[in-house]
C-alpha cells in the first residue's frame, strides 16, 4: 500500500510513541510537550555526537571550533553552504539568534545549557562564552533541542504561543502534507549535505504491536522500537531484509542507592546488594542475552577504548557469600527480612516506573535479594509522574533508573555533588544524593580539559570509584533499537560497522542514515 507510488522514492517511518494523532507544532523550543515528530529533519544543530567513536562531538552545521581561555571561550566557525528551505542563507546572525534564545528567554532554558553569552564574530563565526571550563560540555551544541532557526522568521513571532505550522529550517526536508495521522516530508533539492535518495519521508503513527505486523508486511521501512525476541520473530524470517539492530547508547539501567540516608550511606550495604543482583536473569527475561552491564556502567560496545582493562569483559554474577561477608564487615545482620545494625531495622523498598512494566524485573531483583541475603525488599511501583517525583525528591531507598550520557563524562557527570539537593527538594541529576569529594575532583578535572589521554585517565579513576564505592549499580546496558525492513531501501549501517546510528530521532545521525541509503535494485 504505502511506498512505491509513481513518485517512487518514499521511505515510511512508523512512529510508536506519539499516540494516534500528530500535532502540527513545529515550534522546536515552545513549551508544549507534544510536538510534531521528527523535527530534526527540518531543524539541525551545530554539532553531532559520534556514538561510533566513543561519543566524541563532531561538526554538523558548524564547520569547526576552537576553545580558548582555558575552555571558557568557544569560537565556532559555521558552514557557509547552508541555506534555509526558503532560500535564505544560514548566517552567524541566525546562529547567534538561535543560541541566544535560551539565554534571552529563560522559559526556553533547556536543561543543560551552560554558556552565558553568544556573540557574532563575523558572517560565519560566532563566539560562545562560558562561566567555567567547558571542554566536557560541548555536546550541548549537538542537542537537537538547540537547533538553528531562521532569525528572519522566528524573531517576529510570539514564541510562547506560536505553533510554526510551516517550518523553515536548514534540514533536508520540508513539510509536505500534514494530517493528524500521517505526515509527509518532502526532500529538498538544495540541501547542503547532498542529494537525498528519496523524495518523500512519510511518518505514520502506530502502536508497538501493530508495528511488528507492518514491518513484517513491509508497510513500514524503518522504526525505532524494541522487539523482544526480535531475532527469532523477525530477523529469522528473512535475515537479508529484516534487520533488527541494537546500538548501545552508552548508558545502563541501574539501581540507584539513596546514599543520603541509612542504610545506603554504608558502602558495605551497597556492595552487598550490588553483588546479589541477578543480571543474567534480567537480561534473559528481557530477551536480550549478553547485555548485562559491566560494573562501571560504561558499555564495551561504545567505550572499548576508554574502559579500564581490569573491568573489561566482567559479567557480574550473583555472589551470596561475598555479599554476606560485606554485610558482616559493615556490622549488619539480616533479621526477619530486614537489615539490622545497632538495634535499628531497615526494610528497604525499590522504586520503579510501573509504566515501563518494570515490576516484573523488580521482582527478579527482590527475589534474588531474598534468596541470597534473606533481605525482603518491597516493590514500590509508581506511574511515570509519581516515579519521577519521588526519584527527584529523594523519597526512595533504591530506585531502578537509567543512567547514561554522551562520553564518559556524560555518563558520570550526574554523580557530582553540585547537583545534590537535600531530600525533599527536587534534584534533576544526582537523585542518589552522592556526595564524594574524590568524585567531585575527578569530574571537575574532566571539565577542564579536552586532552583525550588525560580524559581517559580521569575516566578510569571514575570507573574505579564507581566499582569500589558503588554509588549505583548497573544492571543491563541500554540501547537504541532499530527495526528496518530493507525491502525497498538498502545501505543501512550495522552495529558491527557504523559511523552513525540509524536511529530515528538522532538528528544528524538520522540524516546521515537517509543520505546513505539506496533504493534496492537501482
Amino acid at each position, binding site marked *: *500500500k504505502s511506498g512505491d507510488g509513481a513518485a517512487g522514492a518514499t521511505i515510511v517511518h512508523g512512529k510508536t510513541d506519539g499516540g494516534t494523532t500528530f500535532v502540527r507544532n513545529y515550534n522546536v523550543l515552545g513549551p508544549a510537550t507534544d510536538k510534531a515528530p521528527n523535527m530534526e529533519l527540518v531543524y539541525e544543530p551545530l554539532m553531532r555526537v559520534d556514538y561510533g567513536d566513543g561519543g566524541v562531538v563532531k561538526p554538523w552545521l558548524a564547520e569547526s571550533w576552537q576553545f580558548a581561555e582555558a575552555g571558557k571561550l568557544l569560537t565556532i566557525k559555521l558552514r557557509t553552504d547552508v541555506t534555509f528551505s526558503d532560500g535564505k542563507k544560514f548566517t552567524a546572525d541566525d546562529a547567534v539568534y538561535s543560541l541566544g534564545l535560551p539565554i534571552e528567554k529563560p*522559559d526556553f532554558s*533547556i536543561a543543560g545549557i551552560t554558556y552565558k553569552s553568544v556573540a557574532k564574530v563575523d558572517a560565519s563565526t560566532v563566539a560562545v562564552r562560558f562561566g567555567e571550563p567547558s571542554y566536557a560540555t560541548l555536546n550541548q551544541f549537538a542537542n537537537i533541542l538547540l537547533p538553528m532557526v531562521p532569525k528572519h522568521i522566528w524573531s517576529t513571532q510570539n514564541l*510562547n504561543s506560536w505553533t510554526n505550522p510551516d517550518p523553515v529550517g536548514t534540514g533536508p526536508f520540508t513539510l509536505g502534507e500534514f494530517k493528524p*495521522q500521517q505526515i509527509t516530508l518532502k526532500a529538498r533539492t538544495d540541501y547542503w549535505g547532498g542529494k537525498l535518495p528519496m523524495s518523500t519521508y512519510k511518518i505514520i503513527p502506530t502502536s508497538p504491536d*501493530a508495528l511488528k*505486523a507492518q514491518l513484517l508486511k513491509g508497510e513500514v521501512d524503518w522504526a525505532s522500537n524494541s522487539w523482544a525476541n526480535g531475532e527469532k520473530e523477525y530477523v529469522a524470517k528473512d535475515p537479508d531484509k529484516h534487520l533488527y539492530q541494537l546500538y548501545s547508547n552508552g548508558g545502563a539501567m541501574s539501581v540507584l542507592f539513596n546514599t543520603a540516608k541509612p542504610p545506603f550511606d554504608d558502602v558495605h550495604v551497597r556492595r552487598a546488594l550490588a553483588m546479589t543482583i541477578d543480571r543474567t536473569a534480567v537480561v534473559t527475561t528481557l530477551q536480550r542475552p549478553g547485555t548485562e552491564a559491566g560494573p562501571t556502567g560504561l558499555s564495551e560496545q561504545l567505550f572499548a577504548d576508554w574502559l579500564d582493562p581490569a573491568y573489561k569483559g566482567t559479567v557480574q554474577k550473583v555472589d551470596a557469600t561475598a555479599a554476606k561477608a560485606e554485610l558482616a564487615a559493615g556490622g549488619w545482620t539480616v533479621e526477619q527480612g530486614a537489615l539490622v545494625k545497632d538495634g535499628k531495622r531497615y526494610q528497604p523498598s525499590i522504586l520503579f516506573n510501573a509504566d515501563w512494566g518494570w515490576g516484573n524485573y523488580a521482582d527478579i531483583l527482590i527475589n534474588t535479594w531474598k534468596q541470597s541475603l534473606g533481605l525482603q525488599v518491597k516493590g514500590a511501583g509508581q506511574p511515570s509522574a509519581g516515579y519521577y517525583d519521588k526519584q527527584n525528591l529523594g523519597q526512595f531507598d533504591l530506585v531502578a533508573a537509567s543512567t547514561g550520557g554522551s562520553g564518559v563524562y556524560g555518563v558520570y557527570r550526574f554523580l557530582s555533588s553540585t547537583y545534590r539537593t537535600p531530600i525533599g527538594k527536587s534534584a534533576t541529576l544526582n537523585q542518589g544524593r552522592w556526595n564524594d569529594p574524590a568524585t567531585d575532583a575527578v569530574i571537575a578535572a574532566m571539565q577542564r580539559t579536552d586532552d583525550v589521554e588525560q580524559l581517559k585517565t580521569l575516566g578510569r579513576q571514575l570507573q574505579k570509584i564507581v566499582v569500589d564505592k558503588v554509588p549505583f549499580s548497573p544492571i543491563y546496558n541500554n540501547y537504541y533499537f532499530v527495526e528496518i525492513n530493507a525491502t525497498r531501501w538498502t545501505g543501512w549501517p550495522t552495529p558491527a560497522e557504523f559511523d552513525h546510528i540509524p536511529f530515528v530521532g538522532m538528528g544528524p545521525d538520522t540524516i546521515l542514515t537517509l543520505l546513505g541509503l539506496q533504493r534496492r535494485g537501482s
Partner: protein
Amino acid sequence: MRLAFLARRLGFYLAAAVAAIGLNFLLPRLMPGDPSSAIVEELERVSGQQVPAETLMSIRAIFGNPSDNLAQQFVDYARQLSHGDLGVSVVNFPVPVADLVLQALPWTLLLVGATTITAFAIGTLLGVVAGWKAGSRFDAILTPFTTFLSSVPYFWVALLALWVFGFVLGWTPLSGGYDADLPQGFSFAYAVSVLHHGLLPAATIVFSAFGGWLLGMRNMTVTTVREDYVLLAQAKGLSPRRVMFRYAARNAMLPSFTGFAMALGGVVGGALLTEIVFSYPGIGYLLYEALQKRDYPMMQGVFLLITLAVLLANLVADLAYVLLDPRIRAKG
C-alpha cells in the same frame, strides 16, 4: 401532564448539568494542594521549561487562581465555558482542548455510535426471539452462551480479535482509523478504508455488548409474553410475528430503552479500552493519552464533554420515551 413531565425532566437535566460542571470544577480543587500550581509544576517537569504566561493564564482560568475565592473562580470558569472554551491542552500547547476533542469526536461517534446501535439491535432482536421461544433449544443454548460472553472483559476480546484477525490472518489493519495514504474526504476509497479499519473494533464492541441487551430483553420478553394483552393478541388470531413484535417486543423493549439511551450517551465517551487496543483515534484514546501525560485541562474538558453528552442523550431518551410509552404522560 405531558408538558409538566417534560419540564420536570428538563429541570433535572439542567440541575444535573450544573452539578456536572460543578463537579468538573471541584474535582481538581478537591485534590490536595492547589491544582493550578500542581499543573504548572507538572508542566515544568515534563518540558523542563518554565511555563509561559499564556499557558499559566489558561490554566488559571480553568483550574483557578489560588488567590481568588471559590465563587470568583467558579464565575471565571463558567465564563470560560460559556465561550466554548475548554482551556488549552497542556501537552499540546497551545492547541485548545476543544479543537482536539472535535478532531476525535467524529471517529468515536462513528465507531461507537454505529456499534452501540448495532449491538442493541442484534441483542434486542435475539433477546425477543429467545424470550418468545423461552425454553426452546435456541434459547437454551443461546442464553447461557451469551451470559458467558457478556462476562468476558471486552478489552480481552479485543486483544484476541486483534491477534487472530489482524495478526494471524491479516484480514484487518492493526491500528488507526483509516488508511493514512488516502486523502481524507468523501471519496469511495476513503470510506472503504474507514470501514476496513473500523471493522474489527466494531466487531469486538458489538460482540461483547450485545449479550447484555439480549439477556435483559429475553427476560423482559418472557415476562411480557405472560401478560394478558399478549395472550389476548394471540387469541385474536394475529400472526405470531405480529404478536411477537407489536405486542410482546414493543412493551418488553421499554425498560431496555432507557439503558439504550444511556449507552448512546456513553457513545461520546468512546469505547475506551477498545479504542486503546486498536489505537483508534477517538475520544476514549484522547482521554487515555491525557491521563497518561497528565494533561489535566484535556482530562477535564473531555470529561465535561462526555458528561454533557450523556445528559443530553438522556434528555432525548426521556423525550422519546414519552412517545414510546403513553402511560408516562399520564403518570408524569
